[in-house]
């Protein structure tokens, strides 16, 4: 592994994908409006839940907003990096162009996971941060160093889990060829991340922490922000994230053994 080489390659990726996306400038404007409306919509939905109740699953409205903020940031990251790249895998495999990727003198997972970038997702990330700062103010959270490191650790773990989930699903394309709908299933499950885990019934809570660890993705970072999180939960998240990341890597290498290119 040569880090400086990979950084250099990534710079080139950034350059080419930004150049191609900026061709569609009105598209970016439409995407901005979509991101804003989507955030307003989910806050509206949350306000319906809270209109006659002070607490949902033990969370106040102001606290639940933090979850929305973190969800928005993570969704922005998904739209910027994961979604454009990992839907591309499906195309590579169907059209047999994965051969060209595998022949390049660079790690194939690195190449297909970071090749493309969709700048309109940035707007969502910025929106999410705005909401997060607003939440920090209304919840009167003290910013100090240990809090910042903890929140940074948990959020990066969430990104790791999210990436691995997307990558898993996309890798299964090698066997099933068309998994476009599988990513749609993942998307609808991830939607749950907008709400505190405690607002669901016990069986769903178990499901969302063991089978699809959506619980870890937004609820634990939000708990860190509120200072409610126990250290074992944070430790657990770190473990889950690394397990997911390593298995997704292993799974990719395993799946490649089954790849038979399109015309051979």
């Amino acid at each position, binding site marked *: 592994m040569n880090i400086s080489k990979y950084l250099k390659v990534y710079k080139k990726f950034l350059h080419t994908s930004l150049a191609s996306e900026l061709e569609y400038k009105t598209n970016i404007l439409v995407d901005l409006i979509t991101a804003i409306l989507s955030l307003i919509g989910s806050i509206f939905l949350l306000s319906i839940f809270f209109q006659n*109740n002070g607490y949902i699953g033990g969370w106040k409205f102001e606290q639940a907003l933090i979850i929305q903020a973190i969800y928005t940031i993570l969704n922005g990251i998904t739209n910027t990096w994961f979604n454009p790249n990992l839907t591309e895998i499906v195309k590579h495999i169907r059209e047999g162009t994965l051969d060209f990727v595998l022949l390049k003198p660079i790690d194939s997972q690195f190449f297909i996971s970071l090749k493309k970038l969709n700048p309109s997702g940035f707007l969502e990330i910025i929106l999410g941060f705005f909401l997060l700062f607003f939440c920090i103010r209304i919840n009167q959270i003290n910013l100090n160093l240990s809090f910042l490191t903890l929140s940074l650790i948990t959020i990066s773990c969430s990104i790791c889990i999210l990436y691995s989930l997307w990558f898993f699903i996309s890798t299964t394309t090698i066997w099933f060829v068309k998994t476009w709908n599988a990513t749609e299933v993942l998307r609808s499950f991830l939607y749950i991340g907008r*709400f505190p885990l405690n*607002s669901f019934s016990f069986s769903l809570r178990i499901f969302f922490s063991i089978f699809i660890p959506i619980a870890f993705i937004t609820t634990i970072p939000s708990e860190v922000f509120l200072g409610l999180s126990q250290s074992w939960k944070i430790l657990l998240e770190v473990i889950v994230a690394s397990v997911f990341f390593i298995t997704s890597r292993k799974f990719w290498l395993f799946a490649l053994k089954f790849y038979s290119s399109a015309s051979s």
Partner: protein
Amino acid sequence: MLEYRVEIALWAISGIIPFFMLNIWTNNNLNESINISDVMLSRYFLCAFFVRQFSVVWVVFSFEEDSLLGKVSPYLIQPLNPFFRYFAQHLAEQITRFPFALIIAFFFFLFNPESIWMPNLGILLLSILSIFLSFLIQFLIQSIVACLCFWTEKASSIERLLFIPTLFLSGLLAPVVSFPAYVKTWIYLTPFPYLIDFPANLLSGNETNISGGLSMQILWILLLFPLFKKIWSEGTKKFTAMGS
């Protein structure tokens, strides 16, 4: 269509968001404030799931792909509006999706045996009609957006924009009765509540204004259809085939 069974099954699963919402509603006793019992609410969300399954439309994405790849030109020569082709595709897929939706409903009843009910024949026929009308409204709206491909090439981002109000205002995530008063005053004038909320209320036996709902659905179709015809004829005039 039967070739893609797995794909369609996954589609059916991806529609289960209403069940998660139901879980939030009943688990936190939120329905007490809007005077709907647990059983009625669970029927509502099951019906919302069904309505969504049989009214989902993706004509924008098909049309955008076809127009970017230049496949629209041969369609235009045929003496039939190409949207009939997409219309038939949608209907065929809805029929294939029916058994999967039934399986999901079966599991739903297995976990919630108290919410089993059988709507009477008249209501059933009326709700099938209203689901079909809801499908027509969405098909027309998306076809209008799809025609924008003639001008912008990437119409799917406009569709994603329109999907947001559809998602939050149609009643898929929360029944329209639960909306705050300042939204309820104007929402019944928009097409959104007639997409999911009205057919789902009708099918589940919740209180709703049947004749008012159906006539609003028909009114929206009568408004949208001429608009589609207009934009289609304008768009085909504007159309320049790839490579010509």
